[in-house]
């Protein structure tokens, strides 16, 4: 195992004493195979116990160690030191208020997520004695990719439209809405469109595509949002076609729902 020394430049902010954030540089002796999170843990354990940051699983599952690493939103547990130079700049996720050091305020996302009803909505629950809701392999395949989201919010830190307008529902929440819209057991698309097809929903997205590029789980929120735009546009026109439109819409959605 070879060793290397890196300069870790970390944005610090203590709400009790600081007016504004500032950079502090630490010289960290590292192992070649470390990730950025390992280096930050070394700082916490050996150099400066006052450093605050979130992490838990160290294996790109929990989604809590998202940070800006050299200006790019990444999971610090998935960012290998060997892919960077000697100097690495670490900042809290962009577009979120800083609570302290590398910890950001999550309230905005936590408030938005339930608004898109990210769960199965049924007009009527099937009685238990009728058995489970069955799905064909393709029906699972249709939404599985979008269910991989770990709510790490890298996509929000990458999305310039969210940075410019924090009312925007944003990539992860919209992708999760799409995940349930695409689920053959679900009947909640009309309810979700009240939020997703409103002004601060999908229409705030201008398809920069940054969300999908930074996603550590290959969810592709940008693709999900464009598909929702297409579906919402069809719905908009069908709703204005009166009886014929309603019939087309019903037949389309009954094809989606396996009874």
């Amino acid at each position, binding site marked *: 195992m070879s060793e290397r020394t890196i300069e870790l430049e970390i944005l610090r902010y203590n*709400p009790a004493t600081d007016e504004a954030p500032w950079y502090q540089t630490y010289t960290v002796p590292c192992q070649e195979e470390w990730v950025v999170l390992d280096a930050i843990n070394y700082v916490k354990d050996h150099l400066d116990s006052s450093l605050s940051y979130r992490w838990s699983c160290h294996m790109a599952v929990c989604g809590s160690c998202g940070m800006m690493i050299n200006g790019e939103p990444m999971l610090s547990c998935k960012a290998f030191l060997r892919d960077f130079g000697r100097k690495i700049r670490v900042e809290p996720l962009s577009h979120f208020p800083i609570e302290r050091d590398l910890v950001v305020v999550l309230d905005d996302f936590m408030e938005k997520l339930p608004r898109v009803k990210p769960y199965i909505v049924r007009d009527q629950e099937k009685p238990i004695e009728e058995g489970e809701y069955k799905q064909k392999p393709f029906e699972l395949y249709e939404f599985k990719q979008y269910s991989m989201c770990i709510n790490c919010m890298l996509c929000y830190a990458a999305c310039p439209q969210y940075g410019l307008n924090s009312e925007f529902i944003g990539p992860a929440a919209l992708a999760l809405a799409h995940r349930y819209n695409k689920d053959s057991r679900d009947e909640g698309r009309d309810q979700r469109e009240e939020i997703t097809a409103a002004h601060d929903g999908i229409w705030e997205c201008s*398809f920069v595509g940054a969300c999908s590029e930074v996603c550590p789980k290959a969810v592709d929120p940008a693709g999900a949002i464009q598909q929702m735009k*297409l579906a919402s546009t069809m719905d908009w026109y069908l709703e204005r076609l009166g009886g014929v439109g309603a019939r087309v819409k019903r037949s389309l959605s009954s094809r989606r729902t396996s009874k």
Partner: protein
Amino acid sequence: MSRKPFVRPVPATTWYMRNGRYLRYMAREVSSLFIGLYMAGLAMGLMRLAQGPDAWNAYLTALSSPLALVFHVLAFAFATYHATTWFNATPKAMRIRWGDGYVPGPTVVRAHYALWGLVSLVILVLVGVI
């Protein structure tokens, strides 16, 4: 302890200078200015055609002015960039079912490029013949 979250403002007019990804996005968006202006010129040209041979010939002369040529070189570059970004993004927005999955993205993109080549050839030949 009371909370005092620090908000980092995003500069509304220069945010896209932050990285190459945003700059490429802005180049794609700015293509619309060139495509729009070109189409505005073409719409006017169609009006000139309706006004008779003299108006049409004046329009053709204006097309070969150095300013028009420089604009059309730029417009061609931006329109081509628009086309590539549009075709590359198409399979994300529109998925086509194929058996128990979807037509693979690269296949959709390649089909678009092939059709693009064909349409371009037809346009070039038609304008050349007319």
